[in-house]
């Protein structure tokens, strides 16, 4: 065990390997408020990477309805239950991580999902919690009666991955160039320790090759400066593939650093597990903050307040509008004259998006003459 710095916990923590941050860290920002669970991302991923024999049940990317959707069944509540009630002391996590709570002889506090647990990726879909007393329309926020939301899930390419910690063969590693976590397909011996250890349950066992596989962050695209398949196929334009710095090296000109460290609008998922996950979520605005705080840690209400006033923050609004506007990875952006512009690493403009789409309001009625007489007409949908 070594001591490593986990900034999401605001403290150092125990981890089986030495601290070694990559040169830069792959990250994804998800705006949960825009998702309609169309699963375009899921299909894009599936049809690109996992349509082979032996990969039938695998969804490296999935969308689940919270609170009742899970893939695999109960993935998060199972860890939360085993971890027990834990506390945050302000922004500092006072509880135990899955590494610190591991039993003697184990690297991680884990659990193994059963075959059946992987068999219902759409369980709980669109199922709200709470009582529908009189109507399904709930005007207040957060919703007092009933709510649900969609959670977008890929491998978190954690800074301190539990799969890496648990692999007895060092067959899983973080790429130094972009922090993507990969299973060495030649080295893995199929022990499935990673499946037991990963609290997000984002490693999978290939039934034909008998080794573990997982989300590869679409690294062949990344290497060409392109965003991932799940990002570019998203019709809700809610994802941003980017790179994230640790907070002490945050550069406000970089999109992910701005969203995570400057505006603090996007939060990690279950930071209390201690893996320093690198997928960040703009929390859903209508969900009770107690639930969201359990899932995204401290800062949920501030993030939602920031999101709700984004219309008055051109820099933030411009960046949010650049989500899904280009296949290329955005290095920097700016907003001038009502237009948000994205730039690549050479400073070349990639794409420009107006903060407000040009609109034309047609008159509802028009006047003309019929047989020499003035007539007022009603404009139909023509």
């Amino acid at each position, binding site marked *: 065990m070594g001591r490593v710095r986990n900034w999401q916990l605001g403290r150092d923590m125990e981890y089986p390997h030495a601290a070694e941050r990559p040169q830069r860290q792959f990250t994804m920002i998800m705006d949960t408020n825009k998702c309609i669970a169309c699963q375009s991302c899921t299909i894009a991923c599936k049809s690109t990477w996992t349509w082979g*024999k032996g990969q039938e049940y695998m969804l490296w990317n999935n969308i689940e309805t919270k609170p009742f959707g899970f893939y695999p069944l109960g993935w998060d509540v199972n860890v939360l239950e085993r971890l027990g009630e834990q506390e945050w002391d302000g922004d500092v996590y006072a509880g135990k991580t899955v590494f610190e709570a591991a039993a003697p002889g184990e690297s991680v506090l884990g659990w193994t999902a059963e075959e059946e647990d*992987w068999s219902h990726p759409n369980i709980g879909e669109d199922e709200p919690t709470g009582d529908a007393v009189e109507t399904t329309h709930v005007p207040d926020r957060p919703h007092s009666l009933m709510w649900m939301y969609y959670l977008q899930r890929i491998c978190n390419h954690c800074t301190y991955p539990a799969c890496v910690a648990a692999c007895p063969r060092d067959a899983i590693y973080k790429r130094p160039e972009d922090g993507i976590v990969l299973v060495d397909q030649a080295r893995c011996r199929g022990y499935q320790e990673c499946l037991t250890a990963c609290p997000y349950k984002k490693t999978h066992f290939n039934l034909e090759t008998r080794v573990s596989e997982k989300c590869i962050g679409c690294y062949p695209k990344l290497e060409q400066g392109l965003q991932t398949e799940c990002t570019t196929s998203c019709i809700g334009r809610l994802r941003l593939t980017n790179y994230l710095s640790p907070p002490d090296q945050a550069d406000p000109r970089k999109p992910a650093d701005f969203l995570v460290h400057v505006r603090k609008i996007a939060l990690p998922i279950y930071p209390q597990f201690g893996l320093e996950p690198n997928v960040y979520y703009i929390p859903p605005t209508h969900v009770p903050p107690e639930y969201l705080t359990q899932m995204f840690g401290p800062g949920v209400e501030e993030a939602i307040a920031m999101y709700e006033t984004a219309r008055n923050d051109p820099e933030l609004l411009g960046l949010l509008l650049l989500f899904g506007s280009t296949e290329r990875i955005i290095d920097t952006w700016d907003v001038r004259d009502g237009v948000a512009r994205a730039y690549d690493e050479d400073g070349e403009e990639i794409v420009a998006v107006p903060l407000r789409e040009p609109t034309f309001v047609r008159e509802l009625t028009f006047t003309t003459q019929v047989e020499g007489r003035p007539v007022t007409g009603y404009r139909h949908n023509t």
Partner: protein
Amino acid sequence: MSGGRQVTRRDALLYGGAAAGGLVAGGAAVAGIAAAVERRREQRPLEGAPIVARAVDGPLPVESPSDGAWRSARAVSVPLVPQQLVPPHLERAGVSEIAVRALTNGGELALLLEWEDASVEDLDGIGRYNDAVAVQLPARAGATPPPITMGAPGAPVHVLQWRATWQRDLDSDGRTGVDQIYPNVVHDVMPDDVLPPETAALYWVGRKAGNPLSQVGRRSPVEAVVAEGVGTITHLPKQAARGRGVHEGGRWRVGIGIPSARKGVGDALAPGTSWPVTFAVWLGSEENRGGRKHIASWQTLEIQGRA
């Protein structure tokens, strides 16, 4: 067997006279007595004694674990304990001993390994782990055995592992997978249906990357590896071990044979030499895999010279 179900003659033969509850007279009782006599005639396994590889002439019955020729070698019972030296630990023991017999004909060393396991786990799936057994020998001769935890840098060990999955592969034309785990599976279009073979092969990445676990057309249910410590298993480029496992009467009985010369591995297992040897057993039903295994302390293997 319980619950008032009609006990058949087949049950009696499969499960023994006691389990049949006396409902079947005659044939079953006779069979039970015969088995008891047979057991008495056979010597009880020795405990704490060296494992003597008896020198015999001719081919060894490696792939016939039930062959009577094994009886000429005295069985030694080796105690097994849950592996709790390095993480991940095996929390609970599912088997307490392994019986070992050894034979040699000068060119090959053969071991017969037997242990109790009520169920057969011979498919690798999600949360499905296989039954397996392994033999560990030092790669090199020497006074001090390598660390029992699979050797150490500079002190390599030679490990021969038999897996029930590989046995089933062999017994099923070389391959088991999705179609055997889920016999009613219906496939959509698969890469090899629509892509050129070399492109389709990319979708079995482990296989394409050369992982020995992922290959089809296995020739032996035994894999020979070397290791210099936990987590360092290295597949030997030349695989010369053979073997066969059968499951009978709630026991696995596995024969493993290796060429005594151990070319490319280490020192020969020559007649008249003595070696430290140890064993590991995995019960798939108890989620044993990798380091979650039953282990034994170093035993002594004496390889008989010809008389």
